[in-house]
């Protein structure tokens, strides 16, 4: 009884949120997984268990995966495989988007933080300027970047292509997000723009967290400024980089609004999350939509769970 009195009220206080999270987060995740393993492909579902939806999201013959992706790219994909060609295109886009977005935002963020750390006049001003894009929603940013990355040729060009033309570097003008091979990289540019300020803030905090004494000690030992960063500051930033990777990675895997704002619902710009939306609300293929949702969740968990384990462990060590 005494024990209950000790933890009872606290538990009662958090119980609404535990209950709500249990139902609306974990309950719905469970329901989603259940739907993904059903045959709810059209209006109604019949039997209980069916892996058909996943079957269309994995190449029928694992050994042929590489050939398969290549043949989709060249346009003569064999039909014998049951894999949904849209999904292969989505994966290609997701991979390219993730690479450009995560690396771009990390490098830009670290570079901006490095510049500010070196002591610029009006640091607060620049910090705000670089951080602001994060306050703009992806939808609004997408509308603006759609105009900036307008692929229209000749006298109809706007945004970057027009700028390139006026600057006399017209050969740089390109078709941006409409490119078959590299379109997804163009889609990642606005995302880099939006998030690099945030990454900068993370790194800046990281830089400031490195004790000045360490830097001075290195300088006393005759280390050049580059070596100070290379061997003293950067090794201290590993946890920051890891957090940044997790944050960027999970945004990248579930990116939806930015893509829809720029490219709409077209295969040329489609990502897994957009396809999930199309399957559920347009095609009403609930099982396959749920299967994609589940795969996205697994993808994000692969990133987040090891990070959580790492954090919990390092906190214990502290």
């Amino acid at each position, binding site marked *: 009884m005494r024990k209950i*009195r000790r933890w009872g*009220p606290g538990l009662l206080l958090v119980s609404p949120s535990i209950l709500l999270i249990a139902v609306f987060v974990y309950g719905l995740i469970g329901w989603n997984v259940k739907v993904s393993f059903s045959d709810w492909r059209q209006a109604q579902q019949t039997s209980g268990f069916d892996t058909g939806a996943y079957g269309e999201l994995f190449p029928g013959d694992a050994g042929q995966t590489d050939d398969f992706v290549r043949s989709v790219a060249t346009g003569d994909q064999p039909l014998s495989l049951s894999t949904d060609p849209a999904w292969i295109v989505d994966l290609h886009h997701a991979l390219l988007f993730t690479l450009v977005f995560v690396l771009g935002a990390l490098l830009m963020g670290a570079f901006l933080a490095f510049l500010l750390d070196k002591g610029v006049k009006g640091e607060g001003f620049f910090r705000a300027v670089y951080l602001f894009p994060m306050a703009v929603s992806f939808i609004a940013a997408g509308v603006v970047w759609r105009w900036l990355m307008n692929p229209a040729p000749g006298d109809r060009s706007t945004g970057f292509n027009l700028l390139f033309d006026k600057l006399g570097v017209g050969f740089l003008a390109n078709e941006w*997000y409409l490119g078959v091979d590299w379109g997804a990289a163009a889609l990642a540019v606005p995302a880099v723009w939006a998030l690099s300020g945030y990454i900068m803030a993370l790194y800046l905090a990281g830089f400031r967290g490195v004790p000045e004494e360490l830097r001075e000690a290195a300088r006393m030992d005759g280390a050049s400024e580059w070596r100070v960063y290379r061997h003293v500051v950067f090794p201290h930033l590993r946890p920051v980089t890891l957090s940044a990777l997790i944050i960027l990675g999970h945004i990248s895997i579930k990116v939806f609004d930015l893509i829809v704002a720029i490219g709409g*619902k077209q*295969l040329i710009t*489609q990502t897994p999350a957009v396809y999930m939306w199309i399957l559920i*609300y*347009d095609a009403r293929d609930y099982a396959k939509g749920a299967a994609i949702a589940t795969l996205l969740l697994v993808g994000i968990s692969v990133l987040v769970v090891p990070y959580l384990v790492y954090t919990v462990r390092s906190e214990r060590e502290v």
Partner: protein
Amino acid sequence: MSERYGRARPTVLAAALVAVVAALALPAAGLGVEGKSDQACQLSVFSWWTGGGEAAGLTKLIGIWNKAHPDCKFKNETVAGGAGTNAKAVLAKRLAAGNPPDSFQGHAGAELRDYIKAGQVLPIDFIYKQAGFGKVMPASLINQIRYNGKIYSVPVNIHRANVLWYNPKTLKANGIAVPKSWGQWITALQKAEDAGLIPLAMGEQWTAKHLLETVMIGALGPKGWAALWRPNSQARWSSKAVTNALNRYNTLLGYTNSDAGSLIWQDAGKLVADGKAAFNVMGDWQDGYFSGTKKGGNLALKPLTGYGWAPVPGTDNVYDWLSDSFTLPKGAPHQAAAVQWLTFLGSRVAQDTFNPVKGSIPARKDANAKLYGPYLKSALKDWKSDALAGSLTHGVVASNAWNADIDTALGLFLQTKNVSRFQTALVAAAKKNS
């Protein structure tokens, strides 16, 4: 822990418990209250008519309805979003939750089949019988919206998809004639290209599908087109005739603008209006965009001089139609009123009130032509005599799932331009869905 503190605890516990229960129960209670206040009759109608001529037309219909039914006023439940993309998502959630409106909008034809198969809408043949719609609407229209022998919706308006738009001044200045046949069209496109124009303006992927369907109807004819959508039609999809149609489509794509994927349909139409492109294929909602007021975001052009129209070459005497229609959901809270609403929608008064404002024609053949502008007058005439072909892009002939598979096949084709690969994918889609 002191004894006094311990004794005070039960009250704290109780208070917390009450708070928890209240927090959980309140939303539910809120819903209950809402359900009960519905006892006064209110006709809830769900649509995506939130802007432009459609919203204005709906407002007029609501005015007539409220005057005639003061005891059961109209409750306008709209969700914004072109072609109902967002609205359909909201509706799907409501229907799945067993909370249907009294009537909801849907494209007539196969797009409604998901609702029909799920038992979410009721057959309304009795309304057609009582109101005599069968006598005033084209028999082929009623045949094409029938599913398993029953009718499930009342078409309010008819749009035409196979319209070729051009700028008379541009064509005249470059000596281009309005094409009537496939051969003439290619000649005209080539001339436009030589003159430095965009021969055929096209927009994002769905407008490419729109173009595809008009080309296929032209090449296959309305009967051949209809045959593609019957059960077990995969053999027809692999026929020579389809190969020929797809080759034509591929040829046309060679005359389109390279930035199509970045343009919405209005952008593509504006290229024609601005004299930068020779032709554009779009549904007749383009008429509203071209002739509507500048204040409404339209171009305020004069019909016939500022812009001209013709059937897409090869589809003369074919009306590639689509229609907004309304249904009777199962479990509609006010079913009697919903039946009256559907009867009203099919009436000449309602259709002649709504359509001139929306920029479409009535499904009925007895419309008062005086109420309509130049384009719609010509459409009214064609509607009475043309053969009908249902639209693919706008939900008449194929289910949502089939449409999605065709979207994927088309999306890949736009990237690769590989016709035989495209046809194989279309055959596979037919095999899976027909």
